[in-house]
């Protein structure tokens, strides 16, 4: 795993802060189970995300009351524990989306200001 070395941004550190939001966003679309959530996150470009991180995050969000959960039996393969957003999860997602928006706007502003300064 990469570690922050002061020269470049450590993606895994960034992910840690926003994994809740990413998981909630995946589940906002449709209910899903752990392994599928992981695959969707990776498919959307977050390929540094760890299996254990996603599993642990799902369990924590569930414990915190942001997710509903139910088991879907399957004839072939293991039973799947599906997770989906409940009301609290949806409002957490809305709230976090706003926070994320203002955060990225602030950072974009900073970074753009710097690049125009450099261009001069």
């Amino acid at each position, binding site marked *: 795993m990469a570690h922050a070395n002061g020269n470049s941004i450590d993606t895994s550190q960034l992910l*840690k802060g926003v994994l809740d939001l990413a998981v909630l966003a995946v589940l906002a679309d449709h209910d899903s*189970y752990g*392994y599928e959530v992981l695959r969707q996150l990776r498919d959307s470009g977050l390929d540094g995300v760890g299996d*254990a991180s996603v599993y642990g995050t799902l*369990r924590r969000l569930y414990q915190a009351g942001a997710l509903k959960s139910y088991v879907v039996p399957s004839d072939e393969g*293991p039973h799947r524990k599906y997770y989906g957003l409940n009301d609290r999860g949806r409002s957490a997602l809305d709230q976090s989306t706003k926070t994320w928006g203002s955060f990225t706007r602030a950072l974009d502003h900073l970074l753009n200001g710097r690049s125009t300064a450099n261009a001069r």
Partner: protein
Amino acid sequence: MPDSSQANDVASYASAVRAALAPLPDAERESLLEDLENHLAEVASESGVSLQERLGRPEDYAAELRSAYGAGNDVSNTGPRRPLRDRTAALLKAVSSKLPDGDLRALLPELRPGWWVVRAYLVVLFLAFVFRDGSNLRPIPNPFTSGGLLQIVATVVAIGISVRLGRRTTAASRGWRGAVVAMNVVIALLALPVLGRM
């Protein structure tokens, strides 16, 4: 990989993860790991390689789980599993590392001669309290009374003895130093009530 060996792989990986999370409170661990076996089976069924190759060491997996779950972050500080001796040593280390280097720590041994003088004074003070009239004891005895003069002379003599004893103790054996430490404690304890009366 055939099904039965895959099931074995899942079971052994899951139990290694469980073992690595043993320090967590039981309820917390079970709630975190409730679905672990099914989840691992899912992972295993999608690829031909072993879970260890796919997910890394179970200990690392457990550490990542724990950090994502945010569980028992204070376990290492408050857990009953840690022996008292370890915790005391850790506490001492923490306290001594707080002392500024080469400052206070270096200062403490230099304060020793001061204590040698003080303990001599305290011993004579205690003796004076016992053998003289303890009710009108003063921090510095009146040299114009015979008792007071005697007390001052005794203090000077005691300081001489105490300093000599102290200098010898600094280089002495452990047993001898232990005896002197005990004596210091006794002197301090005896002198406290006397000081309290002045």
